[in-house]
C-alpha cells in the first residue's frame, strides 16, 4: 500500500518535470514508468518507506505552524543581521538544553529543524528527551527555552 | 534588478571563499563549501531569469540535492574516516 502511494507520488513528480512532451510519445512515457519502477525497487531494497512518510493529518497543523515559523525566522534574521553589522559584535554564545516534549520522531525532527532554521539557535545534538542547542545570544537562548516553539511543535501530534 | 541580486550572490560567494581559504578547522571549510553550493543554486536560478530563459531550473534543483548528499558524504568521511562504515548507534 505504501509502495503504491510512493509509486504514484514519484510518477506524478516525473510527469510534472518532463510530462508535457511525453504524453504524445509512448516510448518516452514507457521510459518514465520504467524509471519510476526502478526507483521504487531501489527504495524497497533500502527499506526506508515506513508509516512516517504519509501523515496527511499533519498538513492541517502545518498550515498553522508554517506562518508562525516564518514570522519567527524573520524576527530572528533581523536580530542576528543587526548584531553582525554592528562594529562591536555584541554576541554571547552559549550552550543550553531544551526539552522536546514530542512523542513521534517526525515531530521531534520538525522541532529540531525549526530551531536550526531560526538564525541565532542551532540544534547540535539529541540527548534523550533533551536537545542541545547552541545559541548566539542570551535573548535567543531565552526565546528557545521559553518553550513556545516546543508547544507548537507538540501541538501538531494531535 | 536581477543584476543587483547577481552581484549580491557573487559577493557572498567571494566571502565564503575567503572563509574556505582561511578556515582554521575542517568544519569551517565544509560549512563554506555547503554555503557555496546554496549560492550556486541561487546564482543559476537568478542567471536563468537574467538571460530570460527560466526553463532549466531542474539544474538548480539537482544542485540542491547534490549539495545535501555531498555534505553528508563528506561529514561521514570526517567522522569515520571511511565511506562504508556503519553508524555506531
Amino acid at each position: 500500500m505504501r509502495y503504491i502511494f510512493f509509486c504514484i507520488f514519484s510518477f506524478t513528480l516525473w510527469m510534472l518535470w518532463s510530462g508535457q512532451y511525453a504524453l504524445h510519445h509512448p516510448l518516452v512515457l514507457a521510459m518514465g514508468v520504467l524509471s519510476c519502477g526502478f526507483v521504487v525497487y531501489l527504495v524497497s531494497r533500502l527499506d526506508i518507506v515506513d508509516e512516517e512518510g504519509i501523515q496527511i493529518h499533519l498538513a492541517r497543523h502545518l498550515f498553522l505552524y508554517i506562518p508562525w515559523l516564518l514570522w519567527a525566522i524573520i524576527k530572528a534574521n533581523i536580530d542576528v543581521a543587526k548584531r553582525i553589522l554592528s562594529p562591536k559584535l555584541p554576541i554571547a554564545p552559549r550552550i543550553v538544553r531544551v526539552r522536546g516534549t514530542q512523542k513521534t520522531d517526525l515531530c521531534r525532527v520538525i522541532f529540531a529543524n525549526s530551531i536550526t532554521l531560526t538564525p541565532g539557535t542551532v540544534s547540535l545534538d539529541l540527548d534523550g528527551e533533551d536537545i542541545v542547542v547552541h545559541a548566539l545570544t542570551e535573548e535567543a537562548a531565552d526565546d528557545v527555552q521559553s518553550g513556545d516553539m516546543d508547544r507548537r511543535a507538540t501541538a501538531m501530534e494531535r | 534588478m536581477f543584476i543587483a541580486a547577481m552581484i549580491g550572490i557573487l559577493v557572498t560567494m567571494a566571502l565564503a571563499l575567503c572563509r574556505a581559504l582561511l578556515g582554521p578547522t575542517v568544519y569551517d571549510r565544509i560549512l563554506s563549501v555547503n554555503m557555496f553550493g546554496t549560492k550556486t543554486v541561487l546564482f543559476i536560478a537568478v542567471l536563468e531569469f537574467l538571460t530570460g530563459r527560466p526553463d532549466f531550473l531542474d539544474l538548480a534543483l539537482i544542485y540542491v540535492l547534490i549539495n545535501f548528499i555531498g555534505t553528508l558524504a563528506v561529514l561521514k568521511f570526517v567522522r569515520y574516516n571511511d565511506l562504508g562504515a556503519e553508524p555506531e548507534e
Partner: protein
Amino acid sequence: MIIIDILSWICLILGSILCIIGGLGLLRLPDFYSRLHGGGITDSLGAGLILIGLMFQSGLTMVTVKLAMILIVLFITSPTSTHALGKAALISGLKPVVTDEHID
C-alpha cells in the same frame, strides 16, 4: 503588474543584502559554532527571499512550481546539514567558545 514587479524587486534586493550579511557573519564571527548562524541567515531568509522574488517574476507557470520545489527542498535539507555539521564538530571534540558559566 507594476506592484508585483516592485514586490519582487524588494524581495530580491532584501534577499541579496541578507546573503551578503550572512557572508560577512561567516567571516567576522569568532568561532565555528557562531559561524553556523551566519550560514543560517543566508540559507533561510536570504535564499528564501531571492527565490520568492523570482517566483513573483515568473507568475503562475511551471517555473514557479520548480522554484517552490527548490525552496521546500532547501528548507528541509539546509537545517539538516547544518545540524549534521554541528553534531560532527561536537563529537570530534571541537570546543565552543562560551561567554557564560552555565554550561549544560
